[in-house]
């Protein structure tokens, strides 16, 4: 895999170019699926430093997604703003500040208890969003109007059909995805990644050689919150409606943990996994609307039991059929 790393950057560039050209050839419904898949991919990429390198799994990133989405929703509903640019900064600062503050509490725990602490945080936000219905609209959620990018300067609305008959927000999503992809790629190959990996392997030794667990983990946690915030903004703009379900623990929070594990914590694996997950979910919902949980659960269970390395691991194993038996017995 290491030899491939040199060419990764070209592969990603081609992938993003394809995404930009996609609306010209593909039918409209694909565009929406791609937006949702990219929103998840953005969140999942943000999880890679914390979960893949640092070994901490969070069940609470839906909270940051909801924070950003609701910042936009509240600003448009109660302040009457109608362009995106001025809301963008508060919508990104809110999850970052919250993550920095929350990390002081949740990072006192590790492993399963860290997952539970972040779960508690997202559920706390969920109940607040649900119960403060005067501001947040309760279970009905909030409608996100068709915002201008920047009124007066760029009179383009986010859900206007532009080039190639796609939403403006489609191109926004692809651009943000490219930025997050680039940032994550740089982060994963940085000294910061090494200190995260050291912390995961042995926290006591890491401390002894001068790595501060709190600041390191806190930065990784904030990065994941920032990407979740970006995803929340893009979701709100493209879908046009938000509800407290974003912060519910079986919502995006649990889904991205699944995707990051299916992706085997690698960048390309995670992107592949988020596209496949969204496709599988959509089709399971379409053809088996009552029992889609059963189908999703079975697929996930089989993949998790068969290959702890994720989809790419599974793929790798099937490519080298000879190693298949060794692969499965290595698990223990």
């Amino acid at each position, binding site marked *: 895999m290491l030899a491939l790393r040199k060419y990764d950057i070209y592969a990603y560039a081609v992938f993003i170019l394809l995404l930009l050209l996609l609306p010209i050839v593909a039918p409209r419904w694909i565009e929406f699926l791609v937006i949702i898949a990219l929103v998840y991919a953005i969140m999942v990429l943000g999880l890679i430093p914390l979960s893949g390198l640092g070994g901490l*799994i969070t069940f609470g990133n839906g909270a940051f997604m909801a924070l950003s989405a609701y910042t936009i929703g509240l600003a448009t509903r109660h302040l009457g703003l109608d362009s995106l640019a001025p809301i963008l900064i508060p919508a990104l600062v809110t999850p970052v500040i919250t993550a920095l503050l929350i990390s*002081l*509490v*949740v990072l*006192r*725990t590790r*492993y*399963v*208890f860290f*997952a*539970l*602490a972040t*779960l*508690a*945080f997202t*559920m*706390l936000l969920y*109940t*607040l969003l649900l*119960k*403060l219905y005067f501001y947040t609209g309760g279970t009905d959620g909030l409608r996100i109007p068709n915002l201008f990018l920047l009124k007066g300067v760029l009179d383009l609305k986010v859900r206007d059909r532009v080039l190639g008959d796609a939403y403006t927000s489609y191109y926004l999503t692809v651009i943000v995805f490219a930025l997050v992809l680039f940032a994550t790629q740089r982060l994963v190959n940085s000294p910061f990644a090494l200190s995260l990996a050291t912390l995961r392997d042995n926290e006591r030794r890491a401390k002894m050689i001068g790595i501060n667990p709190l600041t390191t983990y806190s930065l990784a946690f904030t990065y994941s919150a920032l990407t979740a915030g970006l995803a929340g903004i893009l979701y709100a703009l493209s879908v046009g409606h938000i509800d407290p379900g974003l912060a519910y*623990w*079986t919502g995006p929070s*649990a889904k991205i*943990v*699944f995707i990051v*594990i299916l992706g085997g914590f690698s960048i390309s694996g995670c992107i592949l996994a988020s596209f496949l997950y969204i496709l599988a979910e959509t089709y399971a919902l379409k053809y088996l609307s*009552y*029992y889609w*949980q*059963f189908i*999703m*659960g*079975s697929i*996930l*269970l089989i993949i*998790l*039991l068969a290959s*702890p390395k994720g989809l790419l691991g599974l793929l790798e194993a099937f490519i080298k059929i000879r190693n298949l038996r060794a692969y499965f017995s290595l698990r*223990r």
Partner: protein
Amino acid sequence: MVIEVKTLLTIIVNALVYTAILSLIAVGLNLILGVLRILNLAHGIVMALGAYLALSLTTLALERVGSIGSSLLQGALIVIALFLSGLLGGLLFAVITGYLMVRKLIHYEAIYVLLITYSIALIMEDVIKFIWGPKGYVIYGIYPLFGTLEIAGITYPGYYFILLTTAFVVIASTYIFIDYTSIGKIVKAVASDRETAIMLGVRADMAYFIAFTIGCVLTGIGGAFTAPLLTLQPGFSLEFLLLAFIVVVITGLGEIRGIPIVALIISLLRAITITYVPELEMAIPFLLMMFVLAFRPQGLFGGR
């Protein structure tokens, strides 16, 4: 603000009922967590299985018991039916997933276990939906059998006291089983130090199976006895599961001793907030959990 005696009493009775349910579920959850080191996200399903079986069994029993004259006998039969359905639900889940949990999941990393049990929960929830249908059920005909009880001018259903007694007896007998029988001591040994226990010749697999089964049965009974209190619909157990998680985290990993006390604290806080600030009903337990995690990550009763 003057607090009325009636309000206070209602708060206390409601809190006690909630404590009984929460303790049953949380003791089961924490027993599995302590011995197998598996955090079972499918635990809500055990509760749902117990509750739905109780629905079927009591409906069956209520049709039959009509001919029996004495209402005492009728009540006793219903209690037995509830107990049996809880037992059956717990055993059913233990049989279906026991092999996977004990033989496989024990060797996995905690986070994989979390996700695997979560996918089991997804699957089993749809199986329950497939058997009993997606609509909501209410079990009628149980409350009248046990009459009412009047305290300080407020009437409470007599069933509350059946629930409290059952929870007390079941949890007390679990503690006695763990403390005073040789099998219980083996379970305790494996929980406190797995490697040493195995080295001393204890069959750890047996301890795992026993702890897992007891944990499931406790939760199944909790579900069965909760069933008459609420509307049964898919996903109803999620709220209880989340609160049971909070109780477990506040008490401490694998520490079943302090659970009733913590459950009582949570239930009291919940009842008080429901009475005075209903908006914050669920927020308070989560806040308390974050508070405990911040200042005593090992839990209030956790020694390590």
